[in-house]
């Protein structure tokens, strides 16, 4: 059954995704945004365009999910890239991809956000030379 207008997520799922974003931002110190909607033309360019319009693009990680074109884009900002490499982003993308292919957008987003936050968290270096 196709998803009808305004019913992409239940209110419960929306709450869970919002919570996952808050948790991810708390853990990693990066800004997370999730956009679920069709792309205008090329999905990568749409995602980059949306990312550049965010309040702090450099520190932001955008997840763009296009359910029509069945594509997922993760865009990381200049500064966010230092802690989240493209390889790590691809790892989280695969996690989300497996949930999305079963049609479970909410679960995929939650799992992806959690993984991105963990990967984007800077490793605390233990300085052994300090007393």
């Amino acid at each position, binding site marked *: 059954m196709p998803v009808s207008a305004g019913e992409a997520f239940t209110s419960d799922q929306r709450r869970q995704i919002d919570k996952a974003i808050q948790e991810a931002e708390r853990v990693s110190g990066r800004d997370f945004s999730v956009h679920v909607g069709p792309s205008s033309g090329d999905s990568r*360019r749409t995602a980059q365009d949306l990312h550049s319009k965010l309040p702090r693009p450099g520190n932001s990680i955008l997840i763009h999910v296009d359910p029509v074109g069945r594509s997922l884009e993760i865009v*990381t900002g200049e500064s966010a890239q230092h802690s989240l490499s493209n390889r790590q982003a*691809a790892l989280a993308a695969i996690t989300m991809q497996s949930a999305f292919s079963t049609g479970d957008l909410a679960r995929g987003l939650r799992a992806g956000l959690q993984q991105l936050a963990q990967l984007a968290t800077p490793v605390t270096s233990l300085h052994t030379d300090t007393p």
Partner: protein
Amino acid sequence: MSTLHAILLFVGVPLLIFVAITLLVMAPSLAKGPRYRPGQGWDAEPEWFGALPAGQSVDRSRQLEAGPPSRRQQAADPAQTRLGEGVDEGSGGASVRW
């Protein structure tokens, strides 16, 4: 045991059990409502979570994504592809399809 009694017992009771099992199986999906299935239609409004881009409001009317799901056929429209201009090409990330 009368014929009516026998029919009720051997047809009515199994039928009731069938109906009960069918309801139990369908109840979760009925409660959840329509859900997304890859490759099928998508008419829902675009949704934002987390930080919003400048100029976007919380209400679901977004100028960038407004329109019917058939927009994929409009991909060749120059007005649509022009949206990507001014994009920071240095930004990284990942893309997958499903």
